[in-house]
């Protein structure tokens, strides 16, 4: 069943969970680098500060685009947690990022333009894998509805190990972590790496940051789907996956866009398509 309560719960709780995850992320990153690191609640202070700053508007359309980015991220996440159609969730999710790209293109900064182009390349890089993940879930559970996938009771991870690895790969892109933090990074960096967010300042940047928190919670929720038959294992898997992402972030330098595109498509092809092919073959040979 579609659960409005879960959707509302996501809308209210996700920013707090997302901010906390970001805080833990920064703390662990600092410890990996031999530093003490910021307080755990630092991301909340950062966003609070951004809303205290004066708004500099480069072009008025930035407002519309950043707001649309936030709204569609929240909508896709809410739809996901409500148990809605996975395909619709993915389409709303992609649309949200197109608004971010438009927002970056609407300003005049060359850094912003490069960021927008790189963001488009990243969308091209991760999109096939996310759709393959949805298709894989359909092949296993015969449904695109999240609530049916959740309730199927099947250990989806055992059917889709390759798809899961491919998904972890694009998760690195989505969490904006090295080596795939091309269009913008969650760390402090110089202009070209700040990319799409170059010309967003004050409250507008705060909005983008909150949208990113929503996005992260949604993506971690997606990992949950693979392990939905056992909530305990699912939560452990989410924690392990995130720690792995932090480790990758701290051990790799930034790659080029070609490397991003190539590696994510090759991994998606190798892991995802082969996995689905085997699944298809098995279902033809061994009728359920």
């Amino acid at each position, binding site marked *: 069943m579609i659960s409005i309560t879960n959707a509302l719960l996501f809308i209210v709780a996700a920013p707090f969970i997302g901010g906390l995850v970001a805080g833990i992320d920064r703390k662990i990153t600092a410890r990996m*680098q031999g530093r003490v690191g910021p307080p755990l609640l630092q991301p909340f202070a950062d966003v609070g*500060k951004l*809303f*205290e700053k004066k708004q*500099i508007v480069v072009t008025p359309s930035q407002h519309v685009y950043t707001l649309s980015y936030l709204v569609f991220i929240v909508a896709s996440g809410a739809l996901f947690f409500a148990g809605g159609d996975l395909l619709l969730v993915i389409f709303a999710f992609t649309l949200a990022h197109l608004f971010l790209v438009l927002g970056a293109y609407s300003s005049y900064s060359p850094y912003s333009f490069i960021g927008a182009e790189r963001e488009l390349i990243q969308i091209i890089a991760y999109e096939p894998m996310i759709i393959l993940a949805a298709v894989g879930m359909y092949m296993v559970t015969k449904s695109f509805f999240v609530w049916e996938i959740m309730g199927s009771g099947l250990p989806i991870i055992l059917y889709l190990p390759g798809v899961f690895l491919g998904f972890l790969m694009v998760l690195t892109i989505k969490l904006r972590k090295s080596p795939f933090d091309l269009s913008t990074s969650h760390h402090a960096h110089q202009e070209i790496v700040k990319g799409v967010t170059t010309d967003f*300042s*004050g409250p507008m*940047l705060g909005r983008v940051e909150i949208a990113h928190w929503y996005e992260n919670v949604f993506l971690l929720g997606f990992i949950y789907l693979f392990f939905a038959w056992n909530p305990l294992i699912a939560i452990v898997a989410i924690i392990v996956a995130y720690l792995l992402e932090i480790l990758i972030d701290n051990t790799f330098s930034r790659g080029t866009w070609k490397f991003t595109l190539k590696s994510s498509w090759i991994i998606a092809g190798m892991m995802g398509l082969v996995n689905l092919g085997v699944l298809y073959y098995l279902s033809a040979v061994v009728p359920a």
Partner: protein
Amino acid sequence: MTWLSKSPWILHYDASSCNGCDIEVLACLSPLYDVERFGIINTGNPKHADVLVITGGINEQNREVVRNLYAQMPDPKVVVAVGICASSGGVFRECYNVVGGIDCVIPVDVYVPGCAARPESIIDGIVKALSILEEKKKNGTQSSPAPGSGAGGAQ
């Protein structure tokens, strides 16, 4: 108490420094001093920054650049001049190409002396700047246009 002093993002600009102070500024980010403990982040983007940290004096080449950077930072904002060159022009004060300290182009809130300024005194200066930042927020102070730059500075 506002969020501002808990999350100061810094824009570091080398005006015409010999790199001595710059190395000390970057040393603040290293594990030994780790300014991220205080939520301080070194950003490269003036539109994201709250504190402008400048090393070195003003010369004819970077006059407009400094003005431009300052104008692009959203209010409230503070400027910290790090090192004696940034404070007054230092030993280069009399040079034909040097205009003087940072304060001959944009208003400076905190002066950190030293040649080169030590990381401890840089951190101390930024902490002092934070209370000024708080004050500016409370009084709703808008940045005055940089002296001699026309309406609202460059851009």
